[in-house]
């Protein structure tokens, strides 16, 4: 009743950790068997290693948090060498998140990643608000996002999901543009751009000044955007933004998501993913639903 099938992803359940909140699986893999997950979205890979931003990198906000990690990662080659082998014994599908500052970076990184046998799909992070050079532009101009999508599609051996930024006037235009450019699916949403100021220092609390807002606070924005976009594209959407429990997962499905990713909630409860996977069947039973796929877009489908 939980099985879902998306391009490149045959998932025994639709619940996966969100990119950047689960590193490469080692830490949570110490707590539970990763094979219980629908899939694992690994942390953004860039062409070169990145140290990321100075600390503080996180700040709490009402029902949410800001982060400005700055895409810290050891670079695509090192990830392939050191991190991906972990998934050879595991049978859990892997989605590799890709980021960059220049189109060329994305393309090269995506090409390499897509050639890895353990990688089932790519997720293009065109929306990370914490990288200073260029990064943000890809996610806010439909034409640029489309061009990037097409270029990555041209080299990728695996399906490509494009992760949309919510910091735009017209999210539907973004979704349509990347669909037209060949995206196999969408991930939405990434974080909202926010800031906290420290009253003591009178300066922004994060060393990067702004950060990405995630957690329950942004759930209503995520639901609204998925509701709007899912009615205007025909590729599947992996929904995320503030999911804490099985009820939230169902809300995302009703809005139009075909699978979900869970980010911040892992920090609140490290066992949240397996817990939700366990609770979902009961919830669906109580709703009289025998297959979670029935719920996709039910809030707007006639």
């Amino acid at each position: 009743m939980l099985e879902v099938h998306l391009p490149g992803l045959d998932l025994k359940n639709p619940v996966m950790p969100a990119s950047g909140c689960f590193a490469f699986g080692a830490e949570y893999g110490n707590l539970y068997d990763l094979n219980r997950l629908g899939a694992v979205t690994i942390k953004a890979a860039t062409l070169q290693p990145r140290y990321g931003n100075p600390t503080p990198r996180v700040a709490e906000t009402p029902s949410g948090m800001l982060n400005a990690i700055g895409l810290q990662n050891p670079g695509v080659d090192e990830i392939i060498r050191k991190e991906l082998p972990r998934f050879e014994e595991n049978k859990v599908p892997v989605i590799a998140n890709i980021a960059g500052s220049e189109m060329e970076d994305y393309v090269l990184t995506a090409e390499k990643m897509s050639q890895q046998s353990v990688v089932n799909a790519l997720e293009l992070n065109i929306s990370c608000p914490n990288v200073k050079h260029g990064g943000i532009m890809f996610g806010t101009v439909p034409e640029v996002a489309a061009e990037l999508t097409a270029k990555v599609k041209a080299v990728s051996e695996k399906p490509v999901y494009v992760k949309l930024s919510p910091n735009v006037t017209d999210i539907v235009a973004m979704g349509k543009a990347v669909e037209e450019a060949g995206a196999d699916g969408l991930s939405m949403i990434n974080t909202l751009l926010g800031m906290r100021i420290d009253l003591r220092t009178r300066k922004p609390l994060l060393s990067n000044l702004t950060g990405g807002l995630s957690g329950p606070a942004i759930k209503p924005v995520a639901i609204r955007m998925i509701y709007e976009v899912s009615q205007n594209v025909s590729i599947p959407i992996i929904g995320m933004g503030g999911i804490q429990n099985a009820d939230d997962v169902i809300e995302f499905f009703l809005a139009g998501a075909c699978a979900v990713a869970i980010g911040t909630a892992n920090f609140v409860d490290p066992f949240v993913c397996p817990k939700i996977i366990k609770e979902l069947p009961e919830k669906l039973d109580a709703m009289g639903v025998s297959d979670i796929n029935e719920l996709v877009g039910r809030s707007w489908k006639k």
Partner: protein
Amino acid sequence: MMQENMRVLAHEEIADCIFELKLEGEMVWAITEPGQFVHIRVGGGSQSVAPLLRRPISISSADPSKKTMTLIYRSGGLGTGLLSETGIGEKVDVLGPLGHGFPVEATPLQGKALVIGGGVGIPPLYGLSQELNARGIQVTHVLGFRSAKDVFYQMAFEKAGRTIIMTEDGTDGRRGRVTDVLDSVDFDVAYACGPIPMLKALEHAITEKPLFVSLEQRMGCGIGACMACVTRATDANDAKGYRRVCCDGPVFKAGEVELC
């Protein structure tokens, strides 16, 4: 490491806004070193999501025979403020034990340790002192507070060894900072926890002997997955270039990472 709803056995304000919290649960058996910490979810019960993030608090001391551990924390912000309202018999959601603590074995048996703490950096040092004592190591404590009203655990530390209390305003012990009295102490290894300026001063002052420092950083996951808590490795040729305070630390050998 595990997640457990631990029972509150005692909860008391022991100094100005400083609370001592005694928890009971299986987790205590998993503690391996003094200086490890726990990550506490403070919530208004049910499914409230404010505050959202867990709060890292050091394990001050533990008694495996009674399945208890004691935390000491300052109630200041939203999370610790709510935590301070928790009553005896209630449950607290704890993730732990986390991180790597102080290496007691770095001090030779029958050697001498210097333990230096400032403010709410002092709690984990109490458990450290007890472990050092248990190994027959002679411990001297230098504990810095802002003012007399902030002092806690003086007697407890005195039982474990010579204890010099310093206050910034001179209202208790000696007036001044912990670095002012280091020359008078003979030791083989030093252990410290407190504010960054204090740790920096110690790194400058203690160069000939091993010094271990415990760091704080704002945390997300607390288990090494989110990269919120990193600090740069001092060695430019370090393979990773960074350390995560939550799982590589919070205790590091002085000089291993940048203090910031």
